[in-house]
């Protein structure tokens, strides 16, 4: 199934790196994300809600996405995914190349989205401590194989995982 049709099943993907249109404005980035949706009133409501999660984007509405900071671009990428009205969000290393403080902020927002919007999140992340805090269920992959899986709390307290991934 081609990508653009998968999106129509309301599965949103936030790719690794900065998943934005760099030469389009923040506003255009958000509007293009709602391209597949016909109900314009719902899109406007969605836009309002997205701004409650990312007030910073509202301040930068007419700015070109490429001129945003790395953290803001990542926020825009997540906001863009949210504009699809997704049932499932796939995130590929949202912490990639960002300052630790920003990463914590973004993860806090992801948690809120998960709880308040009832959006399922599939997160691939090498920052194991953060990912395990956010996730309900975790899989540990090593060279492409699942070496362990279970509820996050269990995985987090596993001695081997602690030693090799969490570092204590």
């Amino acid at each position, binding site marked *: 199934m*081609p*990508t*653009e049709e998968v*999106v*129509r099943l309301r599965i*949103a*993907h936030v*790719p690794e790196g900065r*998943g*934005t*249109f*760099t*030469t*389009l404005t923040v506003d*255009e980035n958000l*509007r*293009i*994300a709602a*391209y*597949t949706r016909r109900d314009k009133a719902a899109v406007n409501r969605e836009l309002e809600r997205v701004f409650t999660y990312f007030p910073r984007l509202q301040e930068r509405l007419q700015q070109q996405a490429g001129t945003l900071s790395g953290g803001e671009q990542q926020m825009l990428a997540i906001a*863009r995914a949210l504009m*699809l009205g997704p049932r499932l969000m796939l995130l590929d290393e949202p912490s990639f190349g960002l300052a630790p403080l920003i990463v914590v902020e973004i993860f806090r927002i992801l948690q809120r989205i998960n709880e308040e919007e009832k959006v399922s999140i599939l997160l691939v992340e090498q920052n194991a401590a953060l990912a395990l805090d956010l996730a309900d269920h975790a899989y540990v992959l090593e060279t492409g194989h699942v070496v362990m899986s279970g509820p996050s709390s269990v995985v987090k307290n596993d001695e081997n995982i602690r030693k090799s991934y969490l570092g204590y």
Partner: protein
Amino acid sequence: MEQFLQQVASGLANGAIYACVALALVMIYVSTDHINFAQGEMAMFSTYISWQLMSWGLSFWFAFILAVVLSFVMGVVIERVILRPLHNAPVLSIVVVFIGLLAIFNSVAGAIWSYLIKEYPSPFPKSSFGIAGVIGPHQLGVVLVTLIVLGLLFAFFRYTPLGLAMRAAAQNPQMARLVGVRVDWMLALGWGLAASVGAVAGIMVAHIVYLDPNMMAGILLYAFAGALVGGIGNPGGAVLGGFIVGVLENMVAFAGNQIEKTTGIYIIGNGEKLTVALIIVIFVLTVRPAGLFGRVVVKRV
């Protein structure tokens, strides 16, 4: 002075044509990185279609609109049928296809309508249009029509969701797919729009250069020069570049004529206009490859 103004005005009229064709070239370039060498011949073919419609009794403007619509369909079909299978083909194959299209359009037009040069009417009334001594009725009409068309296109790309989707698809096809834009169709639409804009240019210029299968050959070169001057990846720049080239070629010829008149030495004149365009191409490519308004694209490998 009056002569000077006339030269500027006719430069603007020519420039409007170049601007349209340059925009058509850029529209396809930004989304595919290819220059469609057949753009001029497609425009020529559209002009013949409008001529045919008129000879069947349609009024000028009705034939104009119908030809533009048919050109749109033609552009979409060419993309879907001929270029679609070549999406992953090497650049050279695509260049060969473009040259093939050029030859095909040229000879098909010759076969259907013959290579004899035909007169083409101007829709602008001689009595009420133009400013006496400055700009002729057809010239003014050409500038107005192209400005309207360019304005409509700008509004389409700037303010409609479909226009936004097309820009997004051109800027970053993979990302565009991630928001559900059907990128392949956006490409086809881009071809359709480019063919339509080319048709406008062809129909507007036919009264000046007369209708024949080779009418667009020189114009495509000027348009290419215009697109390069403005920056081949920048639609607004290409339009401005088209106007600049149009005025510049006339200014150079005008200056040449003045020099000849006062000193009797012939350096440059009307015959060298195309040379001017080609010199501009070489100059821009060597000194400022990104064009006046283009940005240098740095690709991370």
